């Protein structure tokens, strides 16, 4: 099999993931896009491992480790998203902007009016 096929497929999947991470508003959809990117990297690792015929099978071992780390990441990420939703009432990334830089000298960083309820709660 030509090596360019899995490599190009991995590249395209990764770019689809990039689009999803940048364009999505819901935090869980961003996590889904991150999963796509991780899978693209896994496909690359497996393809190169099979191509190189590594005796230690480094690519496949690293793929298994990435799968496990991704499972841990999705667990922690969903717990954080749940906590943010519980505290703020929303999981939209666009509206979680307490840590942004103030745009002007008189622009206060917190804008409690647009956060709905439970404004100013920082315990996330």
């Amino acid at each position, binding site marked *: *099999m*030509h*090596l*360019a*096929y899995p490599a*190009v*497929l991995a*590249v*395209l*999947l*990764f*770019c*689809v*993931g*990039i689009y*999803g991470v*940048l*364009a*999505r*508003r*819901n935090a*869980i*959809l961003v*996590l*889904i*896009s991150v*999963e*796509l990117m991780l*899978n693209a990297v*896994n*496909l690359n690792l*497996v393809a190169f*491992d*099979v*191509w190189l015929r590594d005796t*230690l*099978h480094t690519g*496949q071992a690293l*793929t*298994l*480790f990435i*799968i*496990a*780390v*991704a*499972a*841990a990441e*999705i*667990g*922690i990420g*969903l*717990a*954080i998203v*749940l*906590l943010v*939703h*519980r*505290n703020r*009432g929303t999981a939209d990334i666009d509206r979680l902007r307490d840590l942004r830089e103030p745009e002007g000298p008189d622009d206060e960083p917190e804008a409690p009016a647009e956060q709905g*309820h439970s404004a100013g709660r920082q315990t996330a």
Partner: protein
Amino acid sequence: MTLAAAHPGFLSPTGVEIVFVLVGIATLAAAVVTVTTSKLVHAALWLVAALGGIAVEYLLLTAEFIAWVQVLIYVGSVVVLLLFGLMLTKAPIVPTVPRGHPSYGALRAEAREAADSGNRWPALAVALAAAATLVTVVVDAFRSSWIDVDRSVQGSAGVTGEVLFQHWVLPFEALSVLLLAALVGAIILSRKGGADAGEPAQGTEPGQGAGQGEQPGPTAGREEQG
């Protein structure tokens, strides 16, 4: 692979290559639908199709064990976790109306507005630029590289297990500790204990002590799959 010459050409694809390209197209289409659909649950279900397609690609690359791990972990538990997350965060589910309904367009626009942020077109530009650059580089770099998938199986369970427990034991054990830490962290993050975290939630007794409520809460058991 027919090794008539040392360099099999593009114009004589083997069966494995044809299947790989077809499954790859399906996988890519499922991924595109995943990141563009405005229905959140549909996005999670199309993710199943994309991840299953990647598992088939692993099988075609003779990495059998990773293919089944992919099916078990990703399709089995990660997507279930994502669906639980979508439901627990009360994701805005737009009522479906038939296509000829007068409010069809408005509901569709509202759903798209809820799912996608305003920087959709810059994101598309970035993704297309990255795809063009990387595809150019990758195709140019690996133009004359072929994977020999016929000679031996590279990733059967026996081979992978032998390698994993002979050479990669220490990272494996460290990874198990990491998983345990992530599990405990997810449980602690998502339980409804404490004086401050339980207040906006529904149905939590206020007199539960200062952050040390004993029952782990109804959402804690769900995180154990991760």
